[in-house]
């Protein structure tokens, strides 16, 4: 679910997972998950596909263009922007900084 009242990141912002967050595929749950201190979120397919590209080097625009190449028939831009805004609001993703934080 996305919430359009949350402010979006500008398209040029480079995004990374927040410190302490780990994104991985979980075979037993058949989905991607985000794990953090003492907690875990199971992600639906589209959230998983978006977060795959959140690596500290891709900007919001890069993430959208990767996904548009993957899914050429869909108009994804605004859904992706809304999801990333929501993910930022949840503390899952952050603008990446120049000092290469912990990998």
């Amino acid at each position, binding site marked *: 679910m996305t919430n359009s009242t949350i402010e979006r990141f500008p398209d040029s912002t480079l995004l990374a997972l927040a410190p302490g967050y*780990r994104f991985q595929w*979980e075979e037993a*749950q058949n989905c991607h998950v985000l*794990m953090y*201190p003492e907690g*875990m979120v199971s992600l639906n397919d589209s959230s998983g596909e978006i977060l795959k590209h959140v690596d500290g080097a891709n900007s919001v625009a890069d993430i959208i263009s990767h996904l548009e190449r993957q899914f050429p028939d869909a108009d994804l831009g605004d859904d992706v922007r809304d999801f990333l805004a929501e993910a930022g609001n949840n503390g899952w993703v952050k603008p990446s900084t120049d000092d290469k934080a912990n990998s």
Partner: protein
Amino acid sequence: MSTAPTPLWLLAELTYKCPLQCPYCSNPVDYATHGKELDTEDWIRVLTEARKLGAAQLGLSGGEPLARTDLEDIIREGRKLGYYTNLITSGIGMDEDRLDNFKVAGLDHIQVSFQASSEELNNWIAGTDSFQHKLDMAKAVKAAGFQMVLCFVTHRENIEQIDQMLDLSVQLNADYVELATTQYYGWAFLNRDVLMPTREQVIEAERQTNVFRDERMPSHMKTFYVVPDYFEKRPKPCMSGWGSLFLVVTPDGKALPCHAARQLPGINFPNVREHSISDIWHGSEAMNKFRGFEWMTEPCRSCSEKEKDFGGCRCQAYMFTGDPANTDPVCDKSPHHDLIDQAAKVSQKPTEKTIVFRNPKNSRRESITT
């Protein structure tokens, strides 16, 4: 979606050894009489098998897990298997070298406990001069680049320091702060009459936490306030249900659905030395005993809220009513709810009782008398 539950959370209680003596410890009172600890190979097998079933969060706890010299190896294996690895520690037994080793081994996060925000009270409750070292280690944890949870277990003696605990958390740059009101199991149950806060203390502590959140909390910080269930009208959804997503393995290898279940009578909890995790989780009588809803008695059985709270806590039902299949008496629909009210009232009165610190000597003495 599959209906078979997955043990998403594996809590590895690596040892009952602990340099601290906190009287609110959730470990069993008779821990000193338990059998030999699992060795490194046993633990790695447990981690491997649980991971295959889908365990993803690994808690390394105790006692004090730093008392295990193979902790680094267990972390490394856990991380290699794909776990998110959480170290739950008092900080005693830690130094900068060990922190570096943990970083290299791939540890994801460290939870450091404090007993209070002042040195005097912290050291008294811990039964050990530990405050300064905890401060140093909390700083070192952050300096090493770990995410840090600070945990304060609150009770009558320290709950009025909530404001100072929150300030200390800001000062130490904690990412998460847990203010966990003592839950009365194990040593905490033994010491309940000395630890139970008054209702006024609880309300004030919650108010101070909310003011902190609204006015002073740094934007990166999250706080969790665990309410004391003796003051509630509905039970906690204990462990999200028995055998639902939580698996505990004790230092001597018993597999449990929660920290406290070992005390329940008539249940033979399987040992990981004798059975695979898969057999234990899916097939053992113990793990299936209170799984789902079939076992429930009234008023839970016909209750519209049963899928929300799973009938509460089996251990609490047993401790108060003698039957773990009863409704958790915290629920005001329980015919035994007055026992909780009474306990809360009695425990709030001044008491002649003295605090029993958690240590091997007291453990042996209490296991004879109980």
